[in-house]
């Protein structure tokens, strides 16, 4: 026998009351947990995905779209830019490194990216199987692509024009899988990488496909971004350029230089994602407020339950005193009751939050692609747990003080 059994028995004796208190709190905690897990993982993904990219240069349009399309690969391209112009910009002394991206095709809604090996290096990608792409129409695929689209080494596939599944298929050319990357937990997992030339080859009409883009003339200078192309080629286009600054100074000057050109725009990932979050933030705040209201109601409900039970248990407490219980023991038992209620509610809420995300990530492909999981724990959850415990103690404080002050003799005498 101990106080815990007593407290547990009291909770069990009022099952409905106890259940509603726990459920109310659990719901509030679950909502907060889901938001916490979602936001933290999203923040982490965004940081990992835009790591090492200071600026994206692409065609004029929405800067947010430019970022979403070229870093997170969720939105559509703003248009194309001339390789020649991109080349010129990339030679600017403020730029340390520039990676070309050519978008436009997909396989089973997985995007095919024409780029160079530096793009894979940006995410510290490593090969799980096979080799990196080398020649035209060779691809190296991300871990999720291999898994979900069931691609294996030396598999051949036809890409579809556009970034959705409905696009027109380029049946005349087939890609071949040369390598599969290890999981990086970045956007790279959902991409199919190839060289820029392959993308061009896909889109050339049969008429000009004969014309080789590598006119290897000893006198010709070659493009620094796509070395097989002559530097003064005025036809070739790419989608965007990922840029790393040489010095902080570039952050001030480079966007201005780029935006001054009529066909180009520069967008900063850090700035645009911050803008995106401030737009989404309102929605998150509303849900968060809703969760806090739930928690507040449950706290009130627990307080009322304890306060009412105090009246019912006046005799119980007086009798316990007559059996040798000290005042402090009664206080501890009430505080334990409040704490136990909120602790249970909180634990169930945390489990519920993780559970919902686990189900979500196994059912919804989009969350799977985004790499959001329910099996991850953050230190903030300890704060939630501690806060809940504190809330329970707070709810029990007034009833506990009343229990402390109870005059046993007058209760037992029935006055």
């Amino acid at each position: 026998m101990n106080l815990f059994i007593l407290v547990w028995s009291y909770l069990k004796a009022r099952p409905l009351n106890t259940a509603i208190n726990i459920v109310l709190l659990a719901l509030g905690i679950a909502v907060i947990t889901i938001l916490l897990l979602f936001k933290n993982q999203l923040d982490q993904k965004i940081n990992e995905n835009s790591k090492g990219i200071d600026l994206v240069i692409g065609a004029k349009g929405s800067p947010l779209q430019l970022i979403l399309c070229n870093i997170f690969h969720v939105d559509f391209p703003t248009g194309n830019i001339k390789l020649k112009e991109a080349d010129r910009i990339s030679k600017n002394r403020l730029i340390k490194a520039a990676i070309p991206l050519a978008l436009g095709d997909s396989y089973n809604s997985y995007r095919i990216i024409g780029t160079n090996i530096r793009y894979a290096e940006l995410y510290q990608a490593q090969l799980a199987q096979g080799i990196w792409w080398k020649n035209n129409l060779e691809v190296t695929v991300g871990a999720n692509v291999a898994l979900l689209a069931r691609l294996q080494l030396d598999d051949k596939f036809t890409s579809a024009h556009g970034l959705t599944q409905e696009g027109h298929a380029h049946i005349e050319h087939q890609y071949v899988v040369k390598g599969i990357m290890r999981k990086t937990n970045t956007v790279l997992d959902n991409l199919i990488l190839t060289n820029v030339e392959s993308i061009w080859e896909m889109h050339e009409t049969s008429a000009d496909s004969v014309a080789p883009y590598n006119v290897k003339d000893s006198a010709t200078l070659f493009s620094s971004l796509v070395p097989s192309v002559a530097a003064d080629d005025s036809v070739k286009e790419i989608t965007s350029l990922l840029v790393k600054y040489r010095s902080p100074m570039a952050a001030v000057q480079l966007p201005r230089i780029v935006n001054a050109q009529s066909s180009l725009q520069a967008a900063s990932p850090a700035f645009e994602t911050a803008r995106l979050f401030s737009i989404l933030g309102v929605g998150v705040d509303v849900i968060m407020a809703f969760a806090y209201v739930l928690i507040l109601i449950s706290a009130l409900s627990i307080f009322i339950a304890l306060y009412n039970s105090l009246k019912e248990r006046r005799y119980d407490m007086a009798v316990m005193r007559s059996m040798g219980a000290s005042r402090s023991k009664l206080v501890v038992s009430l505080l334990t009751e409040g704490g136990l209620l909120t602790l249970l509610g909180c634990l169930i809420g945390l489990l519920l939050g993780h559970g919902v995300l686990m189900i979500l990530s196994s059912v919804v492909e989009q969350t799977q692609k985004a790499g959001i999981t329910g099996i991850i724990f953050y230190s903030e959850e300890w704060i939630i747990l501690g806060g809940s415990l504190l809330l329970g103690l707070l709810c029990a404080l007034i009833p506990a003080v009343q229990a402390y002050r109870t005059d046993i003799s007058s209760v037992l005498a029935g006055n």
Partner: protein
Amino acid sequence: MVSVSGLSYKFSAAPGISFPDFTVKSGEHFLLLGESGSGKTTLLHMLGGLLRNYSGSIRINDVALETLNEHRLDKFRGQNIGFIFQRNHLISALTVEQNLLMHSYLAALPLHAERMEEVLRSLGIADKRKSNISHLSQGQAQRVAIARAVINKPSIIFADEPTSALDDRHCDNVISLLIDVANKNQSTLLIATHDQRLKDRIERKIILTH
């Protein structure tokens, strides 16, 4: 052993009550008689350490209660005294067994399974051990209350109007049980009552006049 000398208690609003001096030897049983309002319950609560701030002296087992601080008084009460109230005041969220265990736990005394068995058997409620309090009859509940009072083998049992709500047959049963249980545990029994039916059962009496 209980001994009282020069005892009086003053309620804040009413004139004080003085109590006669008396001594109860170990193992003796006494009735505490008096009209309603004569201070029977007050005296019982003072003797049991439930009520403090009296003047005079109460010695139980050679310990002067007024010298103990509240915490030590709680402990002393739990280990030496058993209470039986007019209403049973069992903790309804607990089972019969847990109600008894609670007393040992709160008094910080060990309880052996044989003792539990012995007490429940002697009161004829061994089969109710795991029952809920709400499933007991009035008579069974009273037996549980008695069992709870004696489970720690207290040296003194204080009973406050244990029979006033009972009919003649049950009254007779309960008082027999109380005396029997008190004798078995070598406890002193002190019953505060105005129930005339008990007068023949216990000879020694303390009479409060107001």
